[in-house]
């Protein structure tokens, strides 16, 4: 047997197939998971960008100094005299705001359930039989009477809902502060 004959000897059919398609298979093995990964990351980023992320989360019973004011601690109580159907309760959230360098802009964005179904309540509920305290505001006033302001809002929630957090938008850039509630 000559050396020429040895070199020309055909490889087995399976070996030839792997040599011909090995590179393509390797590319497929790399590109498939890469495609899934890229699409997944893109979806995750889109989702995350649209999610509401508070600038600060304030634990229950605590306050925060920001935008030239001391906000909190936020108190919650049942609205006295509220006429609601069975299975409902009116929750009043009260935010004390101590202005330290003039008026600020602030407004309650929502009441959120921090656990379970994570439901979200808006302000502006009309509750028959209850009226807000005379000296309270629904948003921070542009021309306050003094340096202490009380923002007070009411929500109608099903009994058993909670625990809650109150979302407050503060300052010209509407920074979201999340006050956890007892």
């Amino acid at each position, binding site marked *: 047997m000559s050396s020429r004959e040895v070199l020309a000897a055909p490889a087995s059919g399976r070996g030839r197939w792997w040599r011909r398609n090995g590179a393509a298979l390797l590319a497929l093995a790399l590109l498939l998971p890469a495609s899934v990964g890229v699409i997944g990351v893109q979806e995750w980023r889109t989702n995350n960008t649209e999610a509401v992320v508070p600038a600060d989360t304030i634990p229950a019973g605590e306050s925060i100094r920001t935008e030239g004011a001391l906000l909190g601690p936020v108190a919650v109580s049942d609205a006295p005299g509220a*006429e*609601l*159907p069975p299975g*409902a309760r009116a929750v009043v959230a009260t935010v004390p705001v101590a202005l330290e360098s003039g008026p600020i802009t602030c407004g309650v964005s*929502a009441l959120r359930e921090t656990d379970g179904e994570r439901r*979200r309540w*808006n302000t502006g*509920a009309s509750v*028959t039989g209850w009226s807000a305290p005379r000296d309270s505001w629904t948003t921070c006033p542009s021309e306050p009477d003094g340096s202490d302001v009380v923002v007070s809002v009411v929500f109608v*929630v099903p009994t058993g809902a909670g625990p809650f957090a109150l979302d407050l938008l503060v300052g010209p850039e509407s920074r979201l502060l999340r006050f956890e509630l007892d």
Partner: protein
Amino acid sequence: MTAARRPPLLRRIAPWALGLACVVAAWFVALATPADTVAWEPFPVEARTGEPAAGRNLTVTVHDAVRATSVFSGGWRAEGTWVVVDVAAEAVSSERGASLTSAQLIVDGRTYRATERAETMLDERLSIGIARRGSLGFELPADAAGTAVLQLALNPDTRADSVIEYRIDLDALPVAAERELVDAQWAEAP
């Protein structure tokens, strides 16, 4: 000698057959592929009388529907061919945008929006888990007949959102001489 080197017939035909099979398969896949618009089509939720029908952020119970030749609300009154539906509705997960702003009746391919001439459930702000109840009134042509579909949603733009649908047989509806269009109130009295 040359003929001996040619691959067998099956091996020569196989790539062509495989290619053709792929083209045919692609054709079937293209046939079975849903249109682009399917991704944001509304999700219909069938409602039955007296049973809550729950969508993404809207739960509706249709209590009854009647045909009336006259409707009234407070000091307002109107004659005509009316369908008055008594519904209770509540939000599910968020009060943001949770108002019953889309209420329409589809009859024979035509869409009739709920009347705005009286205070009703239309545009009513909904609460989570606490139902509001009231009327919706639809003024129809005198010869309206057949099956109508009541569609209720939180937003007139129902793309990728649920729509509560309730079928009404106009010919079998009880007929009342007059019917009040009731403004929204708590479904259960305080």
